[in-house]
């Protein structure tokens, strides 16, 4: 996986470098990085740090999309888990608050997984339920207020560092390594792709498609709860209304930029995270260049359209670089 990445992800890596270069042109001090209070600071570090929640979401989303599914509820799950962590942080020890938040994410994922895998509801519909209700549940937990906390343990996820690397980035890196080890180190990744490619054929071939589907939604819930913890720690509080708002769409976009097909059957976790970083680098670039931040949405729409054009089944035969297009789609 790690060895295959440079070949498979050439367009994404080039795009990321190109955006960084543009950012550097717009703001010459973009690459200036300094070491202060035991932590790296600078615009480039910020791209990684701010991109952490979407990167975490995209890890889980990549697995879900590989099974031909989609999880629209991750933003709401982020809000729930952030609310749980923030409201327990000051009154309980850190492991309890973290455990409760992760447990809440696990439960949300289990709920989505049961609806999709056991009841056989379409993923987009099944996860819509929690997307609508989840934000209400989060507001129920915070009682409509923005719950702040002062516990330094939880705040570490927002402002702390590991060997100079911001804690949020370290969490993304750890989660990415763990997930890659789990799915690529074993046959799990293959089975997930098989489930997305042709669920019926895979089931006949002996793949536990139902268990696979259940597992990816649970993992996605877990990733969303980590993202919620990081987002809450970042602002030292839980805002049930705005935490993770529309991030599910960014996560889907990140996975699609990472070369996954919405029709399932293939995924790359590293490229999905890179997709999240591309989105964040664009956001930072727009901020640095002095354009109004509202410009973000237009740029995102253009990126979606561009990715659509590259992925479109109808255009594959027409594209001049036919061979390249094909081989990229395969991987």
């Amino acid at each position, binding site marked *: 996986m790690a060895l295959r990445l440079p070949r498979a992800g050439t367009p994404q890596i080039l795009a990321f470098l190109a955006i960084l270069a543009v950012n550097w042109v717009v703001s010459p001090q973009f690459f200036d990085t300094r070491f202060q209070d035991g932590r790296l600071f600078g615009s480039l570090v910020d791209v990684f740090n701010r991109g952490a929640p979407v990167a975490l979401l995209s890890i889980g989303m990549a697995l879900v999309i590989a099974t031909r599914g989609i999880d629209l509820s991750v933003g709401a799950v982020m809000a729930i888990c952030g609310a749980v962590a923030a409201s327990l942080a000051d009154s309980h020890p850190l492991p309890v608050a973290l455990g409760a938040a992760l447990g809440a994410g696990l439960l949300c994922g289990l709920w989505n997984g049961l609806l999709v895998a056991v009841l056989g509801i379409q993923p987009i519909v099944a996860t819509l339920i929690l997307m*609508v209700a989840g934000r209400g549940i989060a507001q129920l937990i915070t009682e409509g207020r923005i719950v702040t906390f002062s516990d330094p343990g939880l705040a570490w996820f927002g402002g702390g560092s590991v060997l100079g690397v911001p804690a949020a980035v370290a969490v993304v890196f750890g989660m990415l390594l763990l997930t890659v080890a789990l799915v690529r180190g074993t046959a799990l990744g293959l089975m997930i792709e098989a489930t997305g490619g042709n669920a019926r054929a895979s089931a006949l071939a002996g793949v536990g498609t139902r268990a696979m589907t259940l597992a990816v939604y649970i993992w996605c819930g877990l990733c969303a709860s980590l993202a919620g913890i990081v987002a809450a720690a970042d602002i030292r509080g839980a805002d049930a209304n705005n935490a993770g708002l529309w991030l599910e769409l960014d996560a889907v976009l990140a996975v699609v930029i990472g070369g996954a097909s*919405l029709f399932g059957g293939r995924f790359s976790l590293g490229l999905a995270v890179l997709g999240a970083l591309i989105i964040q680098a664009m956001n930072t670039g727009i901020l640095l260049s002095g354009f109004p931040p509202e410009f973000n*949405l237009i740029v995102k*729409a253009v990126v979606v359209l561009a990715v659509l*054009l590259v992925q479109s089944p109808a255009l594959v035969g027409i594209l001049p670089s036919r061979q390249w297009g094909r081989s990229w789609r395969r991987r």
Partner: protein
Amino acid sequence: MNRLLPVLVTTAVFLIGFALCCLQFPNFLSTRVVFNLLTDNAFLGIVAVGMTFVIISGGIDLSVGSVIGFTTVFLALAIQRAGLPPLVAFALVLVVCAAFGAAMGAVIHHLEMPPFIVTLAGMFLARGASFLLSTESIPIDAALYTDLPDAAIRLPGGGRLTVIAMIMLAVFVAGGLLLHVTRFGATVYALGGNRTATALMGVRVGRTTILIYTLSSLLAGLSGIVFSLYTSSGNSLAATGVELDTIAAVVIGGTLLTGGQGFMFGTFIGVLIQGLIATYITFDGTLSSWWTKIATGVLLFAFIAFQQSMVGLAGRRSRRRAAGVAPA
């Protein structure tokens, strides 16, 4: 009968819910409450009519909330800054919205991409465009905007049938006729049932797909006009998340999200149920607004689970009837 069952259940849920509200709050049973329900949810109802077409055809349109937001800002700027007469501005914005929907439909059909991701791009684009036009809320004080919302037919019991509510009812009637009586409506059902079979039958799938998304965006534009009349302002943040409320209303109304089944009347009841929950929470006074979201989610789950069991039963029965010939 089987097809009508979801709509009947939805209607029963609404009537029972209304009766329970009346039992708890005697003031609930008045024409004032009923007609306010229509006025307050007029914009949601109009956009839900378009969404019903989209969902029955097996698609989804995530862009409608952003299109409403764009419409309100566009109108505010056209009327307040450019000094256009409101009716000219209305016509102009409807043309823009229709073209936007046609473009999305064309991309969905010709590039063979899932409607979900195409309308997601449309959502970003429309919201971004409205932010670019203006990021602040602009009040509209044209004569039409002060007169029209107040114009209403007064009914006994304090009820007022406003122009806005009448527009919504007219859109529902027109939408119902278009869906259930015309050839276009039959094609929409056919598309949701089986796209390939429909194309093989000689139906022009591309034209119908483009028309469906044009209609959805056009109605979102009309809904935006109503929304701007209702709030007398244009705001680029207006109607954020309305696409979810709309989809929820259509699904609660008994329309199958996989396409091919549903009724316009069901959507009407679905919109009223959402309005009823909000009104109940206002009447109660101690419940907070987030209970609306939770209650909508619970209802959504109940209806989807109900539909799923219905589809499962129907599938088993038809399979038994086919005696070994599995349906594709």
